């Protein structure tokens, strides 16, 4: 069953065709990775799914829901969590608070109940807290629970962001370059977590990544893009050996390689 179906998606910024006719579908429970050189339009696809950008043409379906008709803040409640390429955490809050905000989509109380702090709100807070503790446990963030984000090392912040995306209880998790800026060991941790999230939590993962070792290790299928267009789709091995992909990375014409 397909979780996410992207059909003939295009996004033009003025004359620049950032994404130009991309179609793919992500199956339930798979790790689907988009690769491509800088400026290939990978992050733009993420921002289109998140509804930060309006699509020029095309459709994005999440299960039966057409996403292009929704606002950005209506995406997370459907069960889509995401991270950002350049970490976008709430710097002046603790790790715990960051993860708790991530539970926003699961809130049930109104702001008036919040002001009165009714027993219902108290119970809800306990539930949020319990859910967040599970994520802290899973990502091994105990040591940082009450630390401010601003003072944490880059790698920890990167993990925190994954934690925050998990907090909304997503069915689809979108990771924008989860390994960028991480050491080899940290990248290995990320690989294990991705496998755990896929196998134990049953999450579907859509990822943009440059680190080919990570891509090969975790991905079920890979989509390669160049200049806004899809150029190859298949298993990591198939895509990597595709001459057009090699050409795109080396920056020469596909025909010259053939």
């Amino acid at each position, binding site marked *: 069953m397909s979780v996410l179906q992207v059909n003939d998606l295009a996004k033009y910024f003025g004359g620049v065709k950032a994404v130009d006719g991309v179609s793919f579908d992500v199956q339930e429970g798979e790790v689907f990775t988009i690769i491509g050189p800088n400026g290939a339009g990978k992050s733009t696809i993420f921002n289109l799914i998140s509804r930060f950008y309006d699509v020029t043409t095309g459709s994005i379906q999440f299960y039966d829901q057409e996403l292009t008709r929704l606002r950005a*803040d209506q995406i997370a409640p459907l069960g889509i969590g995401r991270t950002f390429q350049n970490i976008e955490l709430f710097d002046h809050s603790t790790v715990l608070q960051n993860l708790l905000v991530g539970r926003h989509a699961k809130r049930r109380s109104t702001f008036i109940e919040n002001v009165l702090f009714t027993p219902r709100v108290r119970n809800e807070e306990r539930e949020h807290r319990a859910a967040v503790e599970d994520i802290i446990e899973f990502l091994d963030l105990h040591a940082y629970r009450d630390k401010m984000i601003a003072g944490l090392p880059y790698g920890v912040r990167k993990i925190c962001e994954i934690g*925050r995306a998990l907090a909304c209880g997503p069915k689809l998790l979108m990771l924008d370059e989860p390994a960028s800026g991480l050491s080899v060991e940290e990248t290995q941790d990320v690989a294990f977590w991705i496998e755990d999230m896929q196998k134990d939590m049953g999450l579907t993962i859509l990822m943009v990544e440059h680190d080919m070792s990570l891509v090969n290790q975790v991905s079920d299928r890979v989509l390669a893009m160049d200049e806004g267009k899809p150029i190859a789709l298949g298993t990591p091995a198939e895509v990597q050996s595709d001459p057009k992909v090699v050409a795109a990375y080396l920056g020469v014409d596909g025909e010259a390689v053939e």
Partner: protein
Amino acid sequence: MRIHFKTTYDQDIRLFIDRWTFGVYAVLIVAAICMPFLLDEYLIGELISVLIWAVAGMGLMVLAGHTGQASLGHAAFLACGAYMEVWLQSKGVPFVISLPLSGLFAGIVGAIIAIPAIRMSGIYLAIATLAFGVITEDVIILLHDYTGGVEGVFVNPINLFGLEIERYTTPSYFYWLCLGVTILVTLGYVNLMRSSTGRAFVAIRDSEISARAIGINVALYKTISFGISCFITGIGGALLAHFLGFFNYEAFLILISIQLLLLIVIGGMGSIHGAFFGAIVIGFVPQLVTIIREMFTYSAIPGLDTGIFATLLVLIMLFEPQGIYGMWVKTRVWFELFPLARKDMFRRHRSYLKTERMK
């Protein structure tokens, strides 16, 4: 250093983290209740003004300190609350109803203002609210029939369940009333901040883009923040009306808006404590200045208070952007960790790359 061994989640959820903290606040409140027995009427009057400043300051703190939306015209909402209270009181509405109604009126005005305001960011919001504050002065004069315009209006004394409460005849009662309202507002504010709405506010302040990504309806929550902020400030305005007894548009000049802003910055942006620290500074520094000035000269220096406030504000912005609350936290940590505290523990984090133009 006190170490909290956390045994239940409730430790983070409840109002006071431990008995010690509860004790400290209980002592503070008891001390505040006892004040009328210890101080003369003049000082009680000063304390009342501190409480009203604190309430109005908390109003602005919700918006500017916690949601990151600047308002340079908040005195307008003070005016909304004050004039509504005068009108309702003149119609004989009981105080327990008129006070929340006045706040609600200011809150609704605020929420309406928010509709265009939430589309603006940064300096545009600052300028728009500044202009709104300036216009308010003129609007009060134009709405002469309701507001008394330049001549001003009297407010009827409060009648609370048959008890007459008036600033000059029964200052202790009025003090307790203000104290009660302040505690209620503070409690509501703390509740807000320890639940999902408050977290959403802070999220919007720190990164609108991730706020949206985790499902926060930024426009809605900014409107809620405006509404709550103006509601609280309106409550402060209603109390102010009774405190002044008689007032005209000059009680809500743009200078008052700036003073409110000064209050929350000096006190410490983004902390409820800050509103109280700021209110104490705003309330007592003028007295202090007068005492010091009279050591040198008995002739008044016009604008001295504002000049000193402004200088204080410049120094705070340069050396302690977290305000008095920040200093307090640092001092406390320094003593708790003694002798292990290091200077760079509180180094300020700068974000050169975040240009607001791209937002």
